[in-house]
């Protein structure tokens, strides 16, 4: 029996004059791995931020696990874009992962040995245990992304939002990250990922949410991720690479 754990109804959001999202409606079922796909400026990051109350919502309603965001906060994990933080910040990898537990630790308390161990376990899972004491400024882009993933893992959430976790990472990191996302899914977690590379969508995600200011299509990848729908999502900015398979498409500006 499928159950919708995230329901967005008539969500819209704007940056000053420009409406970035309008009338966004969708439902996400538990245990799915959804790719959020759309051209630059389609509002993918804004959508996540709006759902998580990080960006003001003009209208509509969002419920998580039949509750408003504030009450469901503890069950939701968020991985911002890697470029959104300053990696020169004076701290090490383990410490960044431990930050994922700060909500759980609570005010006026310091992370205990138990928390550090939890963080270390997560680092191990993403294959970064050897780098625990490494200064974050000395990590490669792929390693930084894995640290971010580890930080989300320690949160032990039921629903994850990840903003372009595969952007600019090496092939090995990409495999490692996808392996972990699949595992999360197998454990009944729900994951939504902003994704750029159209070629890998069908391999990586069982569901897609095609977004261009509003929802163009949402559902099982094999039903929704069609040439026609992609064309609708990307408008005219599309060059079809006539390959053997139809999914081999790349936006023209890549």
């Amino acid at each position, binding site marked *: 029996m499928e159950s919708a754990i995230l329901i967005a109804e008539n969500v819209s959001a704007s940056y000053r004059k420009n409406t970035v999202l309008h009338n966004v409606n969708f439902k996400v079922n538990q245990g799915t791995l959804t790719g959020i796909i759309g051209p630059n400026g389609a509002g993918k990051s804004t959508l996540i931020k709006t759902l998580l109350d990080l960006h003001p919502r003009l209208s509509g309603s969002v419920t998580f696990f039949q509750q408003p965001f504030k009450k469901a906060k503890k069950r939701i994990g968020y991985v911002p874009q890697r470029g959104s933080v300053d990696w020169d910040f004076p701290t090490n990898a383990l410490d960044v992962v431990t930050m994922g537990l700060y909500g759980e630790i609570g005010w006026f308390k310091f992370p205990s040995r138990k928390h550090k161990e939890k963080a270390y376990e997560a680092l191990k899972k993403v294959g970064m245990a050897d780098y625990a004491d490494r*200064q974050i400024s000395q990590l490669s882009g792929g390693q930084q992304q894995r640290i971010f993933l580890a930080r989300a893992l320690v949160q032990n959430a039921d629903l994850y939002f990840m903003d372009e976790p595969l952007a600019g990472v090496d092939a090995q990191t990409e495999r490692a990250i996808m392996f972990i996302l699949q595992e999360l899914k197998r454990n009944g977690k729900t994951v939504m990922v902003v994704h750029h590379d159209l070629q890998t969508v069908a391999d990586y995600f069982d569901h897609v949410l095609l977004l261009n200011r509003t929802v163009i299509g949402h559902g099982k990848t094999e039903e929704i991720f069609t040439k026609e729908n992609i064309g609708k999502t990307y408008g005219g900015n599309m060059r079809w690479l006539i390959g053997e398979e139809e999914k081999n498409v790349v936006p023209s500006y890549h």
Partner: protein
Amino acid sequence: MTYTAWILLTAALVGLSCGLIGVFLILRKTAMMADAISHTVLLGIVLAFLVTKEVSGPAMLLGGILAGLITALLVQWLQSLKVQHDASMGIVFTTLFAIGVILIATSAGNAHLDVQHALMGEITFIPFHTITLPLAGDIPMATALLMIVLFVVLFFIAAFYKEWKITTFDPALAASIGIPVAAMHYLFMGLVSVTTVASFDAVGAIMVVAMLIAPAASAYLWTDKLSVMLILSGMFGVSAAFTGYVIAAWLDTSISGSMAFATGIFFTVSFIFSPKHGVIAKAVKPAV
């Protein structure tokens, strides 16, 4: 305690408080907010003076904190109206500062308070305004105030250490796990204001900016650990204060000016010689 000892103690307290607060100013990339707040705090102090008609520590402290917070709010508000961030600061602080100077020039003119004093600070007068405390006996008012402020700063940094860390490093994540990012921002701006007001008497409006930014920036070039950076920055602040005093005594010139200048010396040395991020280290080993 001797006259000089009081001055040195006061200077050290300024260096320490500013050094600690400065670390987060640098990491939160709000260094110029220190500049803005140090200017607008003047308005707060003048208003407190006009209301209470006396130069009293608590009232001035309160006025300064309010002015600092109002500055932070106004800057945020202008920014939300799409004014460029640095332009918002520039508009808010110059305007409030101008109002402060006008108020001094027109109504508070010949009283205790003059622009000169507020802007330059007069650490040499500090030992003359004493208050009597139960255990410590007679101690200068400004020094007592700075001790309290240092205690407050230490308390808040320690109590919210991990919250400062996460809201500074990744405010989006912090917000998503339920840490009140905005409240922390204003709390921090409040701490900056408190530190600035308390340091006003000693080093004045503009030199306090040097004390806030330069020691922390120097420390940032020496370490990759937040706790070490805090300790180093505090040490640099105190050392720069002492060095400044020595220079001022030697050249017979403004103590506060010399202290600000001394923070520059500390930064220059760090900038050139730091083993990790110094110019020499980078020239020798260009690929990092």
